[in-house]
């Protein structure tokens, strides 16, 4: 069985935000919520790097560990999903997640949190695969259709990779070898002889 993973190649990401847009459109993500975002480090400086980040579908997910109602579950593919029918919008997963993946729609009354929303690896939720209920709550279940997450499929520079961890690792290893160095060490650092960038 595959172990699904995301990997963003910082040498390739050009901060086009195509992944963010693709995700929003494919999953009909509500206003104010972005399941994926691109962060640029050292923006405008030599050595700037951009990385697209969303839920990383951790093996030992912190969100699942702190959830008071235990609404998270991991699929056989290693994708971390959650049940919105059980979620109470307490926000603990947001406190625990290092990547800022859990998002909360703001409810009308007293601005409390609604039910949590996050990247599903385009694998929907606990509802029946491809059902209308699943589409409305969690977005498009592409994995059940044999497709990969649209953010990675849409990536113009193929910086964002998604799929079986072994294959993703193979692709990245091959790239690193072609660059003739260890990952991410070539480029600005060597050109400018400076290993200590201010981020």
């Amino acid at each position, binding site marked *: 069985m595959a172990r699904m993973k995301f990997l963003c190649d910082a040498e390739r990401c050009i901060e086009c935000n195509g992944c963010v847009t693709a995700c929003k459109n494919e999953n009909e993500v509500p206003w104010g919520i972005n399941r994926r975002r*691109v962060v640029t*480090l050292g923006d405008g400086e030599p050595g700037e790097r951009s990385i697209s980040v969303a839920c990383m579908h951790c093996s030992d997910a912190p969100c699942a560990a702190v959830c008071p109602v235990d609404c998270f579950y991991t699929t056989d593919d290693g994708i971390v999903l959650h049940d919105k029918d059980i979620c109470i919008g*307490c926000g603990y997963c947001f406190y625990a997640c*290092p990547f800022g993946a859990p998002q909360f729609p703001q409810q009308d009354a007293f601005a409390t949190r609604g039910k949590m929303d996050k990247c599903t690896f385009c694998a929907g939720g606990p509802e029946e695969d491809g059902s209308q209920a699943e589409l409305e709550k969690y977005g498009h279940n592409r994995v059940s259709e044999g497709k990969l997450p649209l953010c990675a499929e849409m990536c113009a520079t193929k910086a964002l990779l998604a799929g079986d961890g072994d294959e993703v690792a193979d692709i990245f290893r091959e790239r690193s070898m072609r660059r003739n160095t260890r990952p991410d060490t070539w480029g600005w650092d060597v050109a400018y002889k400076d290993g200590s960038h201010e*981020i």
Partner: protein
Amino acid sequence: MKSERRRRSWLALVLGGWIVVTAPIALSVTLTESSAGAEASDQEKAREASQNPRAEYWREVRHGAQGYSAVTGPEANVLIQDGGETWQELRNGPASTIGAWLMAGVVLALGLLQIFKGTWKLDHRTGRTIKRWSAFDRFIHWGLTVSFLLLALTGLGLLFGRYVLMPLVGKEAFGAVAAVSKPVHDYASPFFIAFLLLTVVAWMKYNFFTSYDLEWFKKVGGYLTREHVPAGFNNAGEKVWYWFLSVAGLVVVASGLFLLTPNFEWSRSTMQLSSLFHIASAIGLICFSLVHMYLATIGNEGTLEAMVGGEVDERWAELHHDVWYDEIMASRGTKAEPDAGSARVS
């Protein structure tokens, strides 16, 4: 090794938090900053830098370096915020376990007290009563009681329910209970805040310590020996409860307000820290309230009457609050004879 050291120092911090609930929630202190201390040595860094020039770069990212993101939202420009790891370990670890043992310990101690000492009964009743609490006092007391119990029960459900209730009733049923608990917890809080503030202000005058309070402490209120201990309107134990309630109450309220208002976009480190202070102060309050509830009901005969009807038997006042009793009697100018017929003299 590193993470172990960090964990130990955090353990010490949360243990301190139990006792020093007085510490204000310092917004400026972020979990990220405090954990940055335990880092690789300079030598290691230099070696890494020679092998991998970007090692330092990614290390900073690992600890919350900020960048730019076109996506707007709280801390959207931070790739990795590592405070959650510490928060998770403390919440699921010491905060839950020590908290559970503390509460169990209090219940056990009270149970032992009841078994070995039993209810502190009044040897006789005079039939005459003294006014102790006004209608307003009783209103704020019971308002505080009801809102506190709602908050305590729903709060405990959110912290322990997954491990205690969920195995019994199942995930869906517990989810339904939790879905009610969460808004009840949110909406009960403004009432708790109002009643707490009223209580703190209205009752402060009863709770300044006096010289004879020391004797009360020395004899643990007489609860173990049943010997006489001096006490004014409030005894020393009640005064400690008042000040604990005031301080821990304000901590629980302040930390709770951060958690209640995510729309103000508090940083995650603020909410993580608030959550820990909230748990620590709330469990402290629950423990102390258990003691209070026991002593005010089955622990001491006649005490509950004070908060229900507002009046206490003269013998109760003489037995438990002798200084106050003497003051009342002195203000009346005469000590009432035990066989006086009037039922109400206040």
